[in-house]
């Protein structure tokens, strides 16, 4: 395909004519578009010239637009076209000119930005409170109508967030147990306090590390999945469809997730704590020569059972918080892919931050419980 070319010729009558020929299509022009536009511009500087476009083989809107832009004004009067090409120029000419919007620096922009952030945060908190309110109302209704409880959804959440999370939480828990035991054993050995590894691992893993570890893992694993699911349901208008059928999305989507995670989280965390203690005990055997069964035997003697209760209460709260925050961000996603991905990011970040905040609160509230 020969690309377009521009020629300035003088006829026998002494008339100067611009003759365009070849292919003036996007495909043919691609590589030479800048050069051709320059050539067109230079010949169109003289407004008295006549134009002859009849030798153009193929013309598309890109070619026509290029010529039109080089003209800078309507010169169809002094131009000869093929008939079908005239129609193409017709279309180009019909486009109303757009004023390029001018960018003006906005001095207040940083303040507006901060204000927006602030008001968005307040908005989030209010919406979350509203969601909790709706959840409580729905829960009360369902308690009086227990047959409508979404059992299947609850058990699905427990299976997906609990049972399926067992391998990864066991692995991570085991490794953390090994690492802590390994790192502290040297110091304990130096003081001749090797047996205190049991106290150290027991308290730190049961009370703090196990619950927090599982909360962070599940916030990343199940929280993100919940936000994504609800967010995509917003995109595909499934939530709207649910409402019109008469199903409350809060009781069918949010409630089972909150209950499911509240059940699954303590169980998974016990599982992870067990794995971590096994890991710690094995490492203690290797490093300090403490017998595995001695470790298991002395654990209940040095770590009060209250710590297990604290861990359970903590993880139950964490589970509910993660499910609530994830659903909240999912419901607030706008129906487009960008917004869904932003929602998932915010949901995971917010869940983890909030869980750590809650953990601090628990540490203060229970500071006198569980230590002998």
């Amino acid at each position, binding site marked *: 395909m020969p690309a377009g070319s521009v020629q300035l010729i003088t006829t026998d009558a002494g008339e100067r004519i611009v003759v365009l020929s070849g292919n003036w*299509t*996007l*495909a043919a022009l*691609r*590589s030479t*578009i*800048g050069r051709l*536009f320059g050539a067109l511009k230079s010949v169109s500087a003289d407004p008295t010239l006549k134009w002859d476009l009849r030798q153009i083989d193929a013309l*598309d*809107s*890109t070619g026509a*637009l*290029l010529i039109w*832009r080089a003209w800078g004004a309507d010169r169809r009067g002094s131009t000869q076209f093929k008939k*079908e*090409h005239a*129609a*193409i120029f017709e*279309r*180009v000419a*019909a*486009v*109303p000119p*757009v004023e*390029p919007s001018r960018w003006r620096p906005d001095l207040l922009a940083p303040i507006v930005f901060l204000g927006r952030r602030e008001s968005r945060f307040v908005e989030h908190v209010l919406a979350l409170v509203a969601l909790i309110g709706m959840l409580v109302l729905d829960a009360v209704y369902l308690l009086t109508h227990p047959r409508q409880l979404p059992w299947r959804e609850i058990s699905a959440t427990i299976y997906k967030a609990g049972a399926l999370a067992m391998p990864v939480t066991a692995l991570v828990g085991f490794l953390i147990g090994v690492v802590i035991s390994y790192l502290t054993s040297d110091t304990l050995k130096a003081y001749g306090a090797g047996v205190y590894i049991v106290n150290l691992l027991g308290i730190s893993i049961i009370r703090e590390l196990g619950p927090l570890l599982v909360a962070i893992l599940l916030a990343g694993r199940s929280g993100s999945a919940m936000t994504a699911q609800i967010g995509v349901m917003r*995109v595909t208008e499934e939530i709207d469809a649910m409402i019109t059928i008469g199903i409350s999305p809060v009781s069918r989507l949010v409630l089972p997730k909150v209950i499911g995670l509240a059940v699954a989280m303590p169980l998974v965390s016990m599982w992870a704590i067990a794995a971590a203690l096994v890991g710690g005990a094995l490492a203690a055997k290797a490093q300090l020569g403490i017998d595995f069964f001695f470790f298991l035997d002395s654990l209940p003697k040095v770590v009060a059972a209250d710590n297990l209760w604290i861990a359970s209460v903590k993880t139950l709260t964490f589970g509910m918080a993660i499910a609530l925050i994830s659903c909240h961000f999912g419901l607030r996603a*706008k*129906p*487009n*892919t*960008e917004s869904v991905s932003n929602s998932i990011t915010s949901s995971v970040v917010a869940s983890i931050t909030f869980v750590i905040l809650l953990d601090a609160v628990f540490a203060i509230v229970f500071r006198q419980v569980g230590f002998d």
Partner: protein
Amino acid sequence: MSDPIIEVKDLWTKRGQQTIHRDLSMQVDAGDIVGLVGGSGSGKTTLLRVVIGLDAPAGGTVRLFGIDPLNAGRQQRLAMQRRFGTLFQGGALFSALSVFENIALPLRELRSLDKRLIRDLVMLKLHLVEIEPRHAGKMPAELSGGMIKRIALARALALDPELLVLDEPTAGLDPDRSRSFVKLIQSLSRDHGLTVFMVTHDVETLSTLATRVAVLADGRIVADGPLDKVRQNRHPFIASFFGTAEPATNPD
């Protein structure tokens, strides 16, 4: 221009265990406006997807501009893909990009056009599909279904393609817009020699726009030709689709 634009020979496609097309052959020549009709689930959209190289056939050959879309080299395939524009059923606009960016995207991908030319081209395409410039900055989520369709058409037209592949172009458009769509395609076909391959249910679009109608039923093309000819076919699907069946003569 003797080579057909689309050439499908002995095509077999399967979805799982189910055979969708058996020994289907058809071709679309340059300048044709072909309307593909068929019952729902008859595999119209699948045929369209196979033709543009999105799905692989189980057997047979597909050639688009003389090239097998699935076995072409990277450069060859890219060059081929720039020669056709596709309008998907739901529009398939990129929801993270504004209207303007959606249409500008294929132009930017060429990496040889300057900003102003791209802007003017986008405005030209928007004007073609009768979208006012003030909508250019909007996001797809803020638009009505009909507007999404028209903007998707503008994006399909962005590279001035030789072939336009349309899946249900007039579904969801009001009759007025549907008529202006028909007019636009007619004028593009007249002035640029545009070839169109479309799936449609809209009999009015078919009768005013299509130069040829292909009927897909029982996994193959059961009729192919000008609308008047196809209407006379006695195949039960055709009879019920165009409402030419008379209960007395066609008891089943």
